[in-house]
């Protein structure tokens, strides 16, 4: 069992590194893409480990519920607080106290840096879904720290 502080620090260090490597290009830059693709790879690996002995999922919604409950609990020690869907392939996952943002000030001071702290997790979700046979695009937005919303758009094959 690795300690959680360790992951937090490592995650932070990864962000710092990628940022420096991309010459401090902020939002919408290659930095986010890079972090996201790292998360994607990790998500793929994690889901393989987690679903070793779970029964097959019935449908898309079942998969999403799994992500919100079990997957989120194993990674962030809590469940997603709110899951909404339009039943046409768009899901909104709301986490009112997202663990990777809790170390940042809850005010507006670091709002501009928040996307960097979410990119890895977007990839994590996308990678997880991809290995469960669901192709998706995952984006995140923060309106008030430390709450955030992940939007999952399912891509029809």
């Amino acid at each position, binding site marked *: *069992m*690795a*300690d959680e502080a360790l*992951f937090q*620090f490592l995650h932070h260090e990864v962000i710092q*590194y990628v940022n420096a490597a991309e010459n401090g290009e902020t939002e919408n830059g290659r930095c986010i893409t890079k972090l996201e693709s790292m998360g994607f*790879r990790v998500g793929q690996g994690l889901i393989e480990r987690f679903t070793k002995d779970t029964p097959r999922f019935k449908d898309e919604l079942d998969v999403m519920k799994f992500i919100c409950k079990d997957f989120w609990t194993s990674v962030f020690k809590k469940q997603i607080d709110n899951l909404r869907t339009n039943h046409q392939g768009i899901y909104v996952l709301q986490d009112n106290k997202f663990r990777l943002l809790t170390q940042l000030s809850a005010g507006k001071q670091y709002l501009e840096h928040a996307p960097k702290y979410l990119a890895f997790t977007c990839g994590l979700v996308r990678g997880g879904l991809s290995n469960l046979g669901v192709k998706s695009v995952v984006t995140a937005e923060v309106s008030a720290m430390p709450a955030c919303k992940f939007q999952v758009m399912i891509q029809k094959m």
Partner: protein
Amino acid sequence: MSRQSNRTTDSKKMNSELFTLTYGALVTQLCKDYENDEEVNKQLDKMGYNIGVRLIEDFLARSSVGRCHDFRETADVIAKVAFKMYLGITPSVTNWSPAGDEFSLILESNPLVDFVELPDNHSTLVYSNLLCGVLRGALEMVQMAVDVRFAQDTLRGDNVTEIRMKFIKRIEENLPVGDE
């Protein structure tokens, strides 16, 4: 659905696979970004150092370990308290130098390398080099300059993973002029 990850509800503990895989993703990225393994090793050490500098705060706050009086005590705290707390393993402390300024940490299992195989073209990569940086950074914050390196690594075919630590000097605290 019973899953092994639901073993503990201790909020301080988390799934170590996440950490291991994330670390793997980082090393992979570094190998892409840099031409040679030496550079990757250097970067990992640097990042480890940054983590160590912060981690020591967390460690001292949570473990209530006081100041160590000698290097032997330091070795014990690192092996029995710190490694246990953060990686869940307890390395053994061996191979003391006669002067008592050098020792080895023997890790029978290294959580960082759970899913790793080194390809042949990365023979000089010290995969877990982050750990060296962490140890160096953390000890520097408690006024100890140490030299940390991997002497053996199971990834490279050795029987055990061995981290060699050498005490260099005690860092003097320089108070700014005029500070009481």
